């Protein structure tokens, strides 16, 4: 298809999506109301209304909404390509994802049968009242969760990724020039350092960065003060695209909450708050087995973390509502995963009684709550926190736990990590391989959580600034390789997987941006 047709199709698609949205009716109302204004002349009605919408900021809001749609739009595709091809073009990956999902569903079904806990049931009235009263302090509850276990942990998922094979790939076991030493054996396109340098040009050694040039020993006039001024201007302009570009060199702590909300086009207007209330009502009315999994996950991970345990109640409020949100189902158009289905009243096969379980189609795994925890530092209002988290999930985090060939998908990130290590630290990689400590086995848990819970929070937020700024998770793979490069000397001395893990156990003192910058721009190629 030529570019002109592609563009018109994109435009038509976005117009269709924005039609009937709340923004659409707001702009219409504004346009009607402005007709009373004196500067609107009959002869130049169209232009006058347009310039009014521009000066009052509504055109900017529309631009931001369109920019958001572009982020989640499917890439242009051939008209005969089936829907499943749009979710994931490679047939063997679709198959692997489907069989992984089947395993999870079987596991969930058997957990429900063994424990005698239904997957979903309506709460009796008294229980609903109790939960409403306890809504703000669910953390004080100590339900008996010992019988529940997480559906899967990242290491189970890693085994599935390791076993991914392309049936058409000639992977002979002999060592050859194109041997790949790592665990991922699918030949996906991943970018190497020269390409990453081009794509992440703003991180180069001669550009000021937050995370490097705002440290105590650097005078603020050299970089920080001017950068913060620019940031304030960006927030005042309320421009999504500008905020995204700005975020590439970091967001100042005081402006980060507003900037991220701008980039994600996450508003907290009346209809968002009402939507959150609707979700809350859904939590109170129905009890899901998945709720227990969420409780267990929060208790096991975030509550045990020095930085995040204070946010326990927030995490329940966000994650329980997240499970009830059917708006999340939209992201399955571009996610290789498929939401689990069930039939009510035992009417299997009758589509009238088909429902999705959980309502948002996402089954949480061990560590899922760590996607939300860092955001609690930025937003203290539950509906705003929820809105930002949901947008981050449907743009980025879903790619970390589904099998796909996407650039930002976890399979590509793992392969990129291994390739970077093999190309630039071959001695280290070979040594670790020989002692049975494949680097991916250590780095996988960092990447699946986008380093949440492993770095100190200020460093983590600086990393997530770049994820938002570059609209890609590749910096996560780069950071993983950079960490290995940083600790290379110590790692060369270890002689077992356990000691390698011990060397890399504590990342809380690392400064991430210098590591990324040095790895990308100071590595000899």
């Amino acid at each position, binding site marked *: 298809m030529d570019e002109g047709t592609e563009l018109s199709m994109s435009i038509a698609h976005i117009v269709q999506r924005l039609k*009937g949205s709340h923004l659409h009716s707001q702009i219409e109302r504004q346009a*009607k109301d402005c007709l009373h204004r004196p500067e609107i002349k009959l002869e130049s009605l169209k232009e006058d209304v347009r310039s009014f919408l521009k000066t009052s900021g509504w055109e900017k809001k529309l631009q931001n909404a369109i920019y958001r749609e572009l982020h989640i739009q499917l890439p242009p595709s051939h008209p005969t390509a089936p829907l499943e091809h749009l979710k994931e073009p490679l*047939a063997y990956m679709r198959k692997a994802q489907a069989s992984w999902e089947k395993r999870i569903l079987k596991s*969930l079904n058997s957990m429900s049968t063994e424990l005698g806990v239904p997957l979903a049931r309506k709460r009796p009235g008294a229980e609903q009242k109790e939960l409403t009263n306890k809504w703000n302090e669910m953390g004080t509850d100590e339900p008996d969760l010992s019988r529940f276990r997480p559906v899967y942990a990242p290491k189970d998922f890693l085994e599935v990724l390791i076993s991914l094979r392309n049936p058409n790939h000639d992977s002979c076991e002999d060592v050859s020039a194109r041997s790949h030493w790592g665990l991922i054996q699918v030949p996906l396109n991943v970018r190497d350092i020269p390409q990453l340098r081009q794509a992440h040009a703003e991180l180069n050694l001669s550009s000021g960065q937050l995370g490097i040039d705002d440290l105590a020993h650097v005078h603020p006039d050299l970089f920080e003060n001017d950068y913060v001024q620019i940031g304030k201007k960006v927030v005042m302009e309320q421009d999504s695209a500008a905020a995204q570009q700005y975020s590439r060199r970091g967001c100042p702590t005081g402006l980060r909450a507003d900037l991220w909300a701008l980039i994600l086009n996450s508003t907290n207007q009346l209809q968002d708050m009402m939507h959150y209330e609707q979700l809350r009502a859904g939590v109170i009315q129905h009890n899901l087995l998945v709720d227990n999994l969420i409780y267990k996950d929060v208790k096991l991970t975030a509550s045990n973390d020095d930085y995040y345990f204070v946010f326990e109640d927030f995490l329940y409020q966000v994650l329980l509502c997240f499970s009830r949100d059917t708006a999340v189902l939209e992201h399955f158009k571009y996610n290789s995963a498929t939401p689990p289905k069930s039939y009510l009243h*035992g009417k299997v096969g009758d589509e009238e*009684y088909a429902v999705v379980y959980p309502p948002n189609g996402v089954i949480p795994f061990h560590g899922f709550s760590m996607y939300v925890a860092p955001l609690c530092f930025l937003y203290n209002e539950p509906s705003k926190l929820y809105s930002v988290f949901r947008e981050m999930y449907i743009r980025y985090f879903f790619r970390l736990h589904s099998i796909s060939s996407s650039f930002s998908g976890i399979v590509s990130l793992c392969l990129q990590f291994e390739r970077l290590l093999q190309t630039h630290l071959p001695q280290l990689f070979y040594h670790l391989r020989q002692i049975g400590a494949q680097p991916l086995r250590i780095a996988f848990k960092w990447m699946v959580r986008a380093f949440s819970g492993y770095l100190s929070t200020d460093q983590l937020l600086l990393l997530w600034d770049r994820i938002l700024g570059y609209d890609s998770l590749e910096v996560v793979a780069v950071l993983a390789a950079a960490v290995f490069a940083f600790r290379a000397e110590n790692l060369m001395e270890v002689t077992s997987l356990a000691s390698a893990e011990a060397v890399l156990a504590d990342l809380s003192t690392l400064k991430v941006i210098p590591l990324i910058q040095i790895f990308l721009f100071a590595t000899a190629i």
Partner: protein
Amino acid sequence: MNEVSSRQPVACAAKPPVYLQIGESKAEPVQSGVCVVDVPLPCGKPVSVEEITFQNHYTAYVTVRLLRRPSGQDGPTKWVTALRDLPLMDNPHTERGSQDYHCIHRTQMLVEADHVVSVRLILRQPSSAWLTFSLEEIKIFPHMEPEPQKEVSDWLSDLILVDQLPDVEGLPDPHTVSSSLQQMWALTEVMQTNQTTASIGRFDVDGCYDINLLSLT
């Protein structure tokens, strides 16, 4: 996009692909990475090709050659190259583009795709990483004369967008004009179908959401 679904591909069957081998002896043929797929069109009817669509299966480059018979029945035929080495995969060694759907339109071709009797696709896959490569679901769509579009909405819109000609005698009252404009606006809004993509948000069916087992199919 209605034109796409209403057109029919030419009824033809691609011959089995012929993989070219290097090496004199039949005992140890070496894959050359080149394969030829011939698609003969039904004889007796030279076709004007509009589009060729296919799904890729690990082919890196495709060359399209056409056998044309420009001067009517029983005239001489000539092979011409319509497209040379169109890249289907960014990098022959990696997966990107390996299973994508493509279409080649007549406007992309170097020659006029008229009076075509047979189409030959020459596939190249220089990388030794793949066991096989081919193209699937090859369909050839003939060039069709565009039908006169029957625009039902044309006369409807004529009814709605009535030009308000100002009175020739004296100037019209601006307030009445602006209020009638607003009424017209409201009328067009009512007439427009307002299809919203927003969902209602309910996950239960008539208040019931009691689930016991997940469906595995």
